């Protein structure tokens, strides 16, 4: 089941990158987040899945739609066709045109990007081999004496909350949650400052 979801996620990510229609790309990213939420739920991370569904699939998609509404629906510049064959054709043309220029760099920007992405992916795949299986009792996070075990054992008695996630966020990691709240406040503040001309706009009174 996880493999199927992961395969669909990869396909959706490729589609989001290749789509020229930004509205469609935003919708694809929404579907991506919803599948991600499903994946979190399969891992028993219900709170994360809930947040992913509400923020990733819900509000983020709407914010992307709002941005598309401002910048226009079609992507500008030399395009990448969703079909592989025309894309390869255009890539060959691009390389041929580049090869004729006298000041051509040793590696084109695309080759460099491919190299960086390939190396990063190789490093991540190499690191992923050492990841413990989900729920593995021998994993460092689950060993006796680890902080996770302490939370699981003591949270109900310490706080009286049945869902351990909430005391972790609100009690044991209360400072972090306060910082997160301030980060969200700051993000909204910045958007207001940029898009509302430093507060000179007096609210929606003049709005239609």
């Amino acid at each position: 089941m996880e493999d199927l979801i992961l395969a669909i996620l990869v396909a959706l990510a490729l589609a989001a990158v290749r789509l020229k229609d930004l509205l469609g790309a935003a919708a694809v990213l929404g579907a991506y987040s919803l599948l991600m939420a499903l994946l979190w739920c399969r891992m028993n991370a219900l709170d994360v899945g809930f947040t992913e569904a509400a923020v990733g699939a819900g509000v983020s998609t709407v914010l992307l739609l709002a941005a598309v509404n401002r910048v226009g629906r079609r992507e500008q510049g030399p395009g990448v066709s969703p079909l592989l064959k025309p894309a390869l054709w255009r890539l060959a043309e691009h390389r041929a045109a580049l090869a004729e220029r006298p000041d051509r760099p040793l590696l084109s920007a695309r080759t460099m990007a491919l190299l960086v992405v390939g190396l990063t992916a190789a490093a991540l795949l190499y690191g992923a081999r050492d990841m413990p299986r989900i729920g593995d009792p021998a994993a460092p996070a689950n060993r006796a004496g680890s902080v996770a075990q302490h939370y699981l054992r003591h949270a109900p008695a310490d706080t009286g909350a049945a869902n351990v996630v909430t005391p972790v966020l609100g009690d044991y990691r209360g400072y972090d949650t306060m910082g997160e709240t301030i980060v969200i406040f700051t993000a909204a503040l910045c958007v207001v400052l940029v898009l509302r001309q430093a507060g000179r706009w007096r609210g929606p009174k003049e709005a239609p």
Partner: protein
Amino acid sequence: MRSTDSLIVRYIARRSVPFIQLYALYVLGHGEDGPGGGFQGGVIFASSFVLLGLANGWGYGRRAAPARLLDPLLPLGCLIYLGIGLAALLAGGAFLEYGALAGSDDPEVRRHWHHYGLIGIEVGVMVTVSAAMATLFFEMARPARVQARVDRVGEEADRA
């Protein structure tokens, strides 16, 4: 964003708002017993205004959640969180030690106040998150016509 032409969509969107908001409060209140909490509840609460804005037009949604209401709510949530932390400090405990709010050493009373403190900070998170999400949407989705007027007001103020 313009309102949709469909009367049905506009009507259903308007009528859904109280149910979405009630569900958001449920998510907030049950964060201790199940998945959810202030953050998720805040996002869901804000989505009710986003739905109004999408279905009934930007101006309709903005009138339901005007800037003069949302702007003070943005820092208010942070201040609620900070205030509860400082209140615990003043009551003789550590910063954000909710049990100290009880002002007594009875473990039963401390446990109750611990609940109140935890719910209190969740309310703070929800206030800031819901106001922030709605503000992000309404600032970004502002129609070009209105945005042009905003820019003109700003430029005139810059010249003055």
